[in-house]
C-alpha cells in the first residue's frame, strides 16, 4: 500500500515537469515564430507612405553639400512658425553662417520628440549641426481615440516611451485611480503594435489595390511647396484636398468667430500671469534626454516656448533648475505683444504666414543677442 502511494506520488512528480513543458515549449515556439516572422515581414516590405517628417529627413540627408548647421525640431508650432530662409538672412545673425532647416512635425508630443530627435541627429551624418532649437509640447496623460490606432503613435511607442507614458499617467494624482490605470493601459496598444510591426503592411496593401494617381500627385505637389521644411498654413489650405481644406477653413473660421474671446484671454493673461506649475518628473526626464542627445552629438540645444495662451512655466522651472541650459520664451503677451495680435494669427494656436515671419525674426534677434553675449563672456574669460 505504502509502496503504491510512493510510486504514484513519484509518478505525479515526474508528470508535472512534463505537463509544464508541454505547455511552455509550444508557447515559446509560438512567441519565437511570432517575433521572427514579424521581423522578416517588416524588413521585406517597403515602409508605408512617407510622412512629411520622412520626406524632411530624406531631403536633409541628401543635401550634404548645403551644410545645414541649425535645425528646428518640434510640433506644428515649429512647422508653421519658423521660416528657415528668413532666419538665415536675419540681420542679427549676419556673419554667423547660419543655414537652417525646419523639422517641425504637426501633432508631435513630448513623448515623441526623443524619437524624432534621434532621427534628425542620425540624418546629420557628418556632424555639421551646431544649433538645435527645440519646442517641446506639454505632456498629455491620455491617448486620444483618433491617435490610438495610428502607425505614427506606434512608431515611437518602444519600451522607454511606454514606461514614460505609464509613469506620467499613473502619477496624475488629481485623477481617479481607475482613470489613471485605464489611461496607462491604453499605451499598451501602440506598444504591442510597435513590437509586432502591427499594421505596417496595411499601407502597402492599400497602395497595391487603390488607384494612387490623384492622391500621389497631390502629395507631391504639397511637398514641393515646402521651403526647407517650412510650409505656411495658408499654402496648405491652398493645396490641400477637399477634406483637409474643410478642416483648415473650419479652424480659421472658428478663430474669426472667437476673436473677441481670444483677445479677452490675452488681456487676462497679461493681468493675471498664471501661478507656478509643477515640473513633472517625466517631463524632466524627456527634457534632460533631449538636451543630452544634442550635446552628445556636439551641438547646442536651445529650448523655446511658443506664443500660445498656455504659458510654459514648466520649461521656465526646468531652465531655472538647470535641467535645460538654454531657453528662449515667447509665451509672454507683454514682451511679445505682436505675436498675440489676432491679425497675425491663422487660428488660436497658430500664427499666419505674416505672424510666422515676425516670430522668425524675433527668434533670430534673440538668438543673435544670446550668441554675442555668450561670445563676449567667453572672450572676457580668456
Amino acid at each position, binding site marked *: 500500500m505504502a509502496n503504491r502511494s510512493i510510486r504514484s506520488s513519484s509518478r505525479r512528480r515526474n508528470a508535472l515537469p512534463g505537463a509544464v513543458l*508541454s505547455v511552455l*515549449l*509550444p*508557447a515559446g*515556439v*509560438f*512567441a*519565437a*515564430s*511570432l*517575433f*521572427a*516572422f*514579424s521581423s522578416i*515581414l*517588416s524588413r521585406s*516590405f517597403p515602409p508605408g507612405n512617407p510622412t512629411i517628417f520622412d520626406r524632411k529627413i530624406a531631403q536633409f540627408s541628401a543635401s550634404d553639400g548645403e551644410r545645414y548647421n541649425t535645425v528646428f525640431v518640434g510640433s506644428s508650432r515649429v512647422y508653421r512658425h519658423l521660416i528657415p530662409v528668413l532666419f538665415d538672412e536675419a540681420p542679427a545673425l549676419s556673419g554667423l553662417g547660419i543655414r537652417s532647416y525646419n523639422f517641425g512635425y504637426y501633432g508631435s508630443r513630448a513623448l515623441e520628440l526623443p524619437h524624432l530627435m534621434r532621427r534628425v541627429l542620425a540624418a546629420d551624418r557628418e556632424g555639421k549641426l551646431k544649433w538645435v532649437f527645440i519646442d517641446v509640447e506639454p505632456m498629455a496623460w491620455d491617448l486620444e481615440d483618433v491617435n490610438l*490606432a*495610428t*502607425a505614427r503613435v506606434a512608431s515611437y511607442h518602444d519600451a522607454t516611451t511606454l514606461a514614460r507614458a505609464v509613469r506620467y499617467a499613473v502619477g496624475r494624482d488629481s485623477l481617479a485611480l481607475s482613470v489613471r490605470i485605464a489611461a496607462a493601459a491604453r499605451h*499598451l*496598444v501602440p506598444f*504591442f*503594435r510597435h513590437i*509586432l*510591426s*502591427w*499594421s*505596417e*503592411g*496595411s499601407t502597402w*496593401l*492599400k497602395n*497595391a*489595390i*487603390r*488607384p*494612387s494617381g490623384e492622391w500621389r500627385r497631390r502629395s507631391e505637389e504639397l511637398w514641393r511647396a515646402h521651403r526647407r521644411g517650412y510650409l505656411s498654413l495658408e499654402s496648405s489650405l491652398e493645396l490641400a484636398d477637399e477634406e483637409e481644406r474643410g478642416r483648415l477653413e473650419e479652424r480659421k473660421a472658428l478663430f474669426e468667430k472667437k476673436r473677441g474671446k481670444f483677445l479677452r484671454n490675452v488681456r487676462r493673461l497679461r493681468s493675471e500671469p498664471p501661478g507656478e506649475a509643477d515640473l513633472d518628473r517625466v517631463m524632466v526626464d524627456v527634457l534632460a534626454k533631449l538636451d543630452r542627445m544634442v550635446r552628445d552629438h556636439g551641438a547646442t540645444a536651445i529650448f523655446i516656448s511658443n506664443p500660445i495662451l498656455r504659458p510654459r512655466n514648466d520649461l521656465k522651472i526646468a531652465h531655472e533648475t538647470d535641467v535645460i541650459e538654454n531657453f528662449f520664451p515667447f509665451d509672454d503677451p507683454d514682451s511679445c505683444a505682436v505675436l498675440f495680435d489676432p491679425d497675425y494669427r491663422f487660428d488660436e494656436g497658430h500664427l499666419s504666414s505674416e505672424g510666422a515671419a515676425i516670430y522668425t525674426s524675433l527668434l533670430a534677434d534673440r538668438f543673435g543677442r544670446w550668441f554675442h553675449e555668450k561670445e563676449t563672456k567667453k572672450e572676457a574669460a580668456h
Partner: protein
Amino acid sequence: MIFTEFRFLLFFAVVFAVHWTLKENRARKIWLLLCSYYFYAAWDWRFLSLIFASTVVDHFAGSGIDRCDRADEKRRKRWLLLSVLCNLGLLGVFKYFNFFVDSGSAFLNTLGIGATVPALRIILPVGISFYTFQTMSYTIDIYRGRLRPAKSFLDLGLFVGFFPQLVAGPIVRARDFIPQLDRLRRPADIPFRACALLFLSGFLKKACISDNISVVVDPYFAHPQAYDALSAWIGVLLYSVQIYCDFSGYSDMAIATAGFLGYRLCDNFAHPYFSGSIQEFWRRWHISLSTWLRDYPYIPLGGGRGSKLFRYRNLMLTMLLGGLWHGAAWRFVIWGGLHGLALVVHREWRTMLERRGIGWSIPPAAGVALTFYWVGLTWIFFRATDWRSAFVIARSYLFLHSPGVKSLDLDGLYLFLLLVAAHWIAYRRWTVPFRRSAPDVLFAAVLGVIVSFISFFMASDVAPFIYFQF
C-alpha cells in the same frame, strides 16, 4: 467592443480565465451572463433593458405555453402571440417605425395629400434583429412542441445574451444551445486547434481583407458617377469580397470564441461564392438566417406546397422579408426581391429541364460565375448610398456604360487571385490533416506565423462590422 479590438482580446482573456477557474456550472453561467451584459453595455448600457425585457417576456410566454394543456389551443396561441407581438413590437419601434412613417407620408404626398408625421429620434440598438429572431424562435419552437422551456431564467438569459453571438449572430436556435447549458463544460470540450485557426481566419478576413478593401470600395460607392464601367465591375467585385470577409469573419470569430468557452454555435457560412446556383448560394450564405426564414415564415406560409403561383408567392414574400430584415430601406427590399426572383427563375429552369428530360445543365464553372454575377448585382442595391447611385452602378455593371472617366486600376489583381487561391484551399479542406496531426510545436510555430502575418497586414483603423447595423 469589436472582436478585432485590443480591448476585446483583454476582455476575453479575463472571461476565459475566470470561466475555466469556476468549478460550478451555475457559477459559470452567471459569470458568462454578467460578461455578456457588460459586453453589450460597452456599446450602450441603456439598451440592455431591451434584451432583458425580451428575455423576461419570452421566459413567461415559454412557460405559459408549456403549462397549458395541449388541447387548450386558444390559451397557447395567446401566449405565443404575446411573445411574437412584443418581439416584433421592439423591432417595429426601434428599426422600422421611421421607415414606415417616411414611406407612408411620401406615398400620401405623391397622391397630393400633404402629410407630415413626426419621426422618432432613436438610434438602432446593435444586434436587435438578431436577438429578437432568436427569442421568437424559442417560443415558436415551444409552441410547436419541438422544445421544452429553459430550465431557469438564467439559461434563457444566457441563450439570448451570450456575447459571442449577441450582436451579429449566428442566429442560434434554443434547441441547439440551451441543452449545452445543462452539462458542466470541461476543458476537453474545447476543440482548441480548430477554434484557434477559426478565430485567426475570421480576424484575417475582417482586419486584413475587409478593412483594407474599404479604401477602394468607399470612394467608389460615394461617387460612382465619376468612374468608368470597368471600375463598376471592380467596385462591385471588391464589395462582394468585403461584405463576405466582414460578415463571415465575424461569424468565424463568434463561433471560435464560443468554442473556447466550451459551447458550439451553428455554422453560418460555407464558401458561398463557390455556389453553382442561387439556391446553393442561400444554403451557404448566412445559413442561420436562411434556415430561420425557411422554418418560420416560409413553411407556415405554405412553403413548397400548393400551386406553382402559390409556391412562388411564398418564396418571394420570404425573400422580401429577408431583405427588410437587413435594413429599414427599400433598397434592402429590392435586394431581397432580386434574390427571390433569381430563386424563382432557377426553380422554373430546373423544372423545365426535368420536364423535357434534358440531362444537360450549365457547366459548374459557368454556374458559379453566373451566380456570382447575379449576387454582385444584388450587392449594388445593398451597398449604394441612394437610388440614383444604385442605378448608375447597375447600368455600368449590366451594360458597361461609363458615366465618368476616373478609373480604379487593376494593379492589385494578383492579390485577388491569391485570395481566391487561399479560399479554394479552405474550401477543399486541405489544411484539416495538418490541423489534426501536426505536432504541438509545429502547430505553435504556424500559429505564430499566422498571427504575425495578421498583425502586419491588419488595417490600422478598426472599422465596425457591416452587419452590426442590422
